[in-house]
């Protein structure tokens, strides 16, 4: 049993090692994404700092500081969750683009192990990018974390990561069905989740039909909970109403996403869609 697990971890590591090697070769892109993330996060933070000017009224500096942190929590948490969703969602599209899809699917690696490896590599990348963005932003913008409960925030982010891994796996199967449209659909899903999840604003400003969508988005709970943890120092007990819905999505979406992927793979093999040219 232990040997089997070790063997599967070894196979999964092949994908992590491959992604590291690819990152080195595509190093310019690996720089572009964090820089892009830093610039967009800073832009959002400066909107917060400009609040008195934008509103035309004097605003208490403590309120401005709170607004900046409110916006930064949203933008950085979304960046983290977005990288997970995008990278896992592009697992098939990327291999099709490289032309290696047939060799990956022909190899004796169980699909679960393959996807675990890709998720592992993605989590490493998302964490590294998010830490880099956070560190860079704090150099430019004063961030008041004096009341922050970092442990609560990390737990919420981990739960959010689990939920987005499941959603990413499900969306990764789209390009097996529709070569180009599949990836386009995944991007549309991501954009809608961004809109309804209260990344830059509380969800109660949304029209009621959008608020209904926000209820089913795990990002809504993760981002609201992280704000409570980092702005008001909320502990995990207080945050439980935010943790459990995201946890339920994660616990359900990972096995359902895997199941969907395996079924779609079978369909692709029946219809001849599992090939490099789509």
């Amino acid at each position, binding site marked *: 049993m232990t040997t089997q697990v070790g063997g599967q971890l070894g196979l999964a590591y092949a994908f992590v090692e*491959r992604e590291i090697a690819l990152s080195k070769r*595509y190093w310019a892109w690996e720089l572009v994404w964090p820089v892009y993330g830093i610039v967009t996060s800073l832009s959002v933070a400066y909107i917060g700092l400009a609040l008195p000017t934008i509103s035309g009224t004097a605003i208490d500096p403590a309120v401005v500081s709170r607004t900046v942190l409110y916006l930064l929590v949203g933008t950085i948490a979304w960046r983290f969750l977005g990288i997970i969703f995008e990278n896992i969602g592009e697992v098939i599209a990327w291999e099709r683009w490289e032309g290696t899809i047939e060799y990956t*699917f*022909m190899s004796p690696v169980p699909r679960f192990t393959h996807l675990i490896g890709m998720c592992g590599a993605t989590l490493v990348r998302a964490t590294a990018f998010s830490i880099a963005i956070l560190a860079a932003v704090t150099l430019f913008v004063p961030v008041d974390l004096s009341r922050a409960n970092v442990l609560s925030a990390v737990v919420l982010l981990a739960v959010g990561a689990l939920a987005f891994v499941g959603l990413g796996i499900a969306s990764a199967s789209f390009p097996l069905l529709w070569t180009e449209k599949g990836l386009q659909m995944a991007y549309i899903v991501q954009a809608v989740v961004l809109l309804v999840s209260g990344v830059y604003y509380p969800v109660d400003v949304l029209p009621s039909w959008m608020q209904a969508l926000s209820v089913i988005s795990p990002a809504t709970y993760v981002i609201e909970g992280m704000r409570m943890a980092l702005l008001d120092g909320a502990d995990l007990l207080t945050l439980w109403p935010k943790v459990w819905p995201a946890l339920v999505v994660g616990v359900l979406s990972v096995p359902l996403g895997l199941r969907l992927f395996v079924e779609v793979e079978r369909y692709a*093999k029946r219809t*001849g869609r599992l090939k490099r040219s789509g």
Partner: protein
Amino acid sequence: MAEAVTKSFKSSREGIRRAVDNVSLRVVRGEIYGLLGANGSGKSTLIRMFSTLLTPDAGRVRVFGIDIRDDENAVKRMINRVSVEASFFKKLSAMENLVYSARLYGVGPDESRGKALAILKRLGVDIDRVNEPLEQLSRGMQQKVAIARAFLTAPTLLLLDEPTTGLDIRSKREVQTFVRDLRDEHDATIVLTTHDLDEAERLSDRIGILHDGRLVAEGTAEELRARHGATALEDVFMSVTGRRLDEADAAAEEKTK
């Protein structure tokens, strides 16, 4: 190995097209079986079914007694394939690609690096270039790396899908010699698809001719010639398909336009 295998595809232009039509063939352990046919005759579809990438509509595919439907992973462990396109991560080097591919078959980097170098040397690849991104290597070099990738995992069944298409004469000969040598040394079983009559005869112990998805003739080159009163394999092809191979290729190309 293949028993009454059939595969059809839906196409908006042609409706339902039968790519492989009730094909049965058996490859003996240790032999090189050449599948000869024009473009669109069903060679690659058959190879894709053998390599678990395509599920047959009817019939069974068994690899050394194991039905793909019963234990796909066990079959995957026994096979490897070389396709017309080299299919690599273009920015990674030949060695990075090979080490990664070997890992997928449970072969660690210490073992795969040494084996890869030995195979690449035999194939005439300049060893000084194995750490360059693959996109910087010529098509011939890339195809040799693809062949090394397949042999690296010591497959019991090797599927070579037009492995020398697009190679210059010298590279073609090197690859053909390597395939023959490795079969003799390692007792590998090889299914080779080609539309090169000369290659089919040079490499194959037995040849099957595919036409419109059907296996229309099978035997050694000598048997086929004797059976059809022909002096060349080209005449056999003409006799069983009603067309010369190059004419059939041109007709297939016209059909896809």
